[in-house]
Every structure is written in C-alpha cells, then in structure tokens.
C-alpha cells in the first residue's frame, strides 16, 4: 500500500489526566537513566555501606555470630548515632557520584537537541517539566540515602535486646531530615547545572566542581581574611555539621573551633537552592538559540 493513501486520524485511546501529564517526562527520564549499564553498576555500588552496616548490626546483636567470628570482645564499636552517621555520610557521598552520572542525562540532552520548544509546546508547563525531571533524581537518590538508612535503623530496632527504638527515634528522624536536605540540594544543583551546559560531559564535571571548588574558595577566604565565614561556601563541611547536629553526634575538634551557627548554615543552603531555582527559571524556556 502506498504511504500517501494512508488516512490519519487523531488518537482515540485513553488520555493521561492533565494533572499527572508531566509524569510522562518522569517515565521517559527513568527509562533513559536505566538504559546505561554504568547506572546499574553505580546504583548497586551505592548499597555497599548499607550491606556492610547490616552485617555489622547483625554481628553486634548476635552472640552466636560473635562467637563464630571470634569477635566476642569487640570494644569501641557500638550501634549508636556515630555508627549511623558514618553509614549516612558514606551513602550521601555515593549519592553525589550517582547524581553526577544521572543528573546531566536528564536535561542536557534536551538542551543540546533543542528539544525544549517541542516539549513545552505540549500541555506541560516549565515547572512541570522541572518537576518531572526532579522526581527522577529525587526517587533515585532517596533509594540510596534515607530509604536504606531507615532500613538499617529498623533492623537495629528489631535486633536490639534492650528497648531501643523509642529511645533512638531521633536518629531515624535525623537521618531522614539530613538525607532529604542533601537530596534536595543535589537534585537542584544537578538540574540547574545541566540546564546551563549543553553537554553531559561538562555537566558531570560541573557537578563535582560545584561541590568542591566553592569549598576551596571558601578555604582561601578563611585563610586570607582570618575568618570562619568562608565555610559557608563549603558544602561538605556544612552538611557534616548539619548531620552531626541532626543525629546529635558530639562535635569533632575542628568543628568546635568553627563558629558557624545552624541558622547561618540553613540560610547558606537555602540561598544555594534559591540560586539553582533561579538558574532553572532562566534556562528552562521554550527557545532555540541558533548561532551562525
């Protein structure tokens, strides 16, 4: 049959509800992210601290396991907020690597292929577009941060011989809150930077650069100006202090010497998120730039 004889008609099937239409972007985002083998490897690698943590919790709570491993006299290792802080820190830094890999995949391709005008000509607003992409990152990062951490906490609560859960509920709350702040920051930074550059290669580098370079600049500022305020550019340092406070871990020596308050850290992180939102507002537009 010749192609020109075909008659075209509109789609007659079930239509996606208008409110959830942006989830189409999420669905395609997930399929794009999972299409890479490296994503699978990285995602699996992100669970390594959790698995080690599970084994440690089991051994520390089981006399038989301790006896079999010859570890009856282990001292110094207790399943408390320090232990959960260690696992949380590992999970969150692995989440950064995962973000650097999958974040730029989500938006950069649309930017480099000039696909935004086509996507935004559908009944999807700019913010729904961002939300659709954000959900992908948020889900992936949640799956490697607060979800496994809560699992660990639940496992310890189940295995503990003494009543443990009620007295240590703050650990669960702190881990969820700390992880959610980290996930929100990472997601926004990744999307903002990916929208700024066209190429994924550059996007990956920029995400690492955005975390480490301001920390270095803050360090230079501290050293030259003899102040502590440069730490407000140091995301790893601020997050460590925040996680310590949320999990009620005693402050380390270097932390005690720094005079940063929790409101200052919160304002700095909020400003960073606001800057990312501003970048997204500027960049996510249905326009095509043609350079001659």
């Amino acid at each position, binding site marked *: 049959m010749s192609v020109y004889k075909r008659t075209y008609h509109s789609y007659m099937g079930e239509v996606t509800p208008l409110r959830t239409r942006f989830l189409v972007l999420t669905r395609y985002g997930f399929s794009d992210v999972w299409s890479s083998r490296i994503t699978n490897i990285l995602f699996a690698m992100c669970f390594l601290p959790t698995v080690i943590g599970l084994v440690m919790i089991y051994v520390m709570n089981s006399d038989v396991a301790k006896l079999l491993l010859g570890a009856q006299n282990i001292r110094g290792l207790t399943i408390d907020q320090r232990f959960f802080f260690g696992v949380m820190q590992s999970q969150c830094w692995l989440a950064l*690597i995962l973000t*650097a*890999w999958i974040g730029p995949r989500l938006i950069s391709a649309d930017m480099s292929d000039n696909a935004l005008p086509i996507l935004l000509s559908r009944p999807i607003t700019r913010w729904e577009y961002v939300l659709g992409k954000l959900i992908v990152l948020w889900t992936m990062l949640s799956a490697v941060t607060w979800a496994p951490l809560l699992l660990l906490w639940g496992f310890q609560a189940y295995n503990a011989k003494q009543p443990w859960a009620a007295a240590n509920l703050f650990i669960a709350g702190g881990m969820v809150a700390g992880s959610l702040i980290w996930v929100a920051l990472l997601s926004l930074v990744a999307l903002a930077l990916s929208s700024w550059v066209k*190429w*994924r*290669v550059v996007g*990956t*580098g920029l995400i*690492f*650069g955005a975390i*480490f*370079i301001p920390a*270095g*600049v803050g*360090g*230079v*500022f501290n*050293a*030259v*100006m*003899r102040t502590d305020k440069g730490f407000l550019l140091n995301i790893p340092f601020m997050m460590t202090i925040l996680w310590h406070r949320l999990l009620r871990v005693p402050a380390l020596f*270097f932390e005690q010497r720094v005079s940063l308050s929790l409101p200052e850290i919160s304002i700095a992180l909020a400003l960073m998120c606001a800057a990312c939102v501003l970048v997204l507002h500027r960049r996510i537009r249905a326009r095509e730039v043609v350079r001659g």
Partner: protein
Amino acid sequence: MRERLEEAKKWAARQPYRLWWVQLRAVVRLEAKRNVLAWRSLWIYFLGFIPVVIIGLHTIVDPAKASGMGEDTMVLAGIFQLYYIRLGIFFGCLGIFSRLIRGEMVERSLHYYLLAPVRREILLLGKFIAGCITALMIFESAVFLSFTLIYAHYGAAGQAFVMDGPGLGQLEAYMGITALACLGYGSIFMLLSMLFKNPTPAAMIFMGWEFINPILPSLLQKISIASYLRHLMPVSMPMHGVLALLTVVTEPVRPWAATMGVLVLTAVVVGISCYRMRKLEIRYTTE
C-alpha cells in the same frame, strides 16, 4: 645492528621536519586562539584569579598589616598547595585539556582536522602545546599576582623579603611547580578524554588516587603528579587530620629527580596519547 642503525638514520633524515614544524605552529596558533579567547574559558579564569581577588581584598581590608609576614607566607603556601594544585589547576586542566579532543568530538568538528593532510601526532602535540599555553598563561599569572599582592601589602619590608630574602626563590619554585602541574595534569586529562567518552568520573578517581597516594607503596607513588610536586614545595605546611595526606612527604626525593619524574611521566602519557590518536576513530552517533 649497524645496518639497522644506518637505516634508522636515513629514515630520520628523510622526514619532513620543516613541514611538521610549520603544521605544528599552525595548529598551536589556531588552538591557542580558540582556548584563550573563548567565553567558555571564563570559568577557568575565575578558578585561577579568585584567590588574587581575595588577597586583593585582604590588602584593602587589612592595610595595617595586622597579620605578620611569616603568617602570610604560610597562608600563601596553603593557598598554593591546597587550592591551586589540588583544585584550581586540577579542574582548570580538566576543562582545558578534555576539550582538546573530546570537546571537538562532542561539537562534531574533529573530522575537519583529521581530514587535513597533517600527521595525527602533530595534531595532538599542537593541541597539547596550545592547552599548555592556555593553562600556563592563566595559572602562572594568577600565582604570580597572588604572590605579588600578598607581599606588596608590606611595602619596603615585603620588597626586602622578596629581593634580599627567600621570597624570590619561593616565587621561582611556585612558578616552576605550577608549570609542572599544568603539564602533568594536562597530559593525563588529555589521555583520559581520549580513553573515555566522559572523562570526569575517571578524573575524579584520579583525584582520589592523588589524595591517597602518600599511603600507597613507593612504586605506586611514582604514578602521581602531586607526589612529585610535594617534594618541590618551598614552604612545608604542617597539616592535621585527613588534610595531612595532601602535604605529607613520606620519602624524600631530590628536587631534580622530582622534576624529571613529572617530565618523564608527562612524556610517557603524551606518547600513549599519540599512539591512541593514530588509532582514533570517530563515531559521532555514539557521542
């Protein structure tokens, strides 16, 4: 054996060195212009010159020299060892040298070069030299300005420290280390950009490698740029905790040996890159 040597000599004498030299200069000129005068290089200027801006602010804010010159010397050493070597030059070279080959692949413009009647090694060397010119221009001037500003602050005392004291020697050392860092990191990132579609994860692994290098066996310590540069630092920095890994010198090495170490490592890496360049195939569809 003698015959082979004679053959090799004849082969070497037959090569069109003059043509290669002309082509190399043309590639360097073209690439240097593209790297130095590009809007996309602005962030590298930021990386290089942000400490200069902060030190300049310090000069304005603290004109009464409340801080001593000795303290400022340590501050400068810290800025150089922890910021410039570990972050500024590292990420700057990652940006400059990854763009040379991989950037052109992403932009889909490398085939223009490959279609030209130029040996690929010449092309690669030209690009590498242009990258080095860009990196050296930015970071050498930034380090020089940082040094000048921090001592200009002290007037005559600062001048005496630089001209009659250890200052000039320190400046020479900083400039030399900067050049070696640009060459070393540049060669490695150029190779990584040819080996991987996305060189950043590999660069981050390399960053981790450089960080943990002092605790590795001495043989493995030789496959690192920072481990050589540590031996050339004019001012030793006492660091505590994890950061001590960045400045600790585990095994003393003579300065000339450290310098040769970086140069040999760079030459080997550029050699491998030349070999890779000969076998390079472009598949734009997979980029």
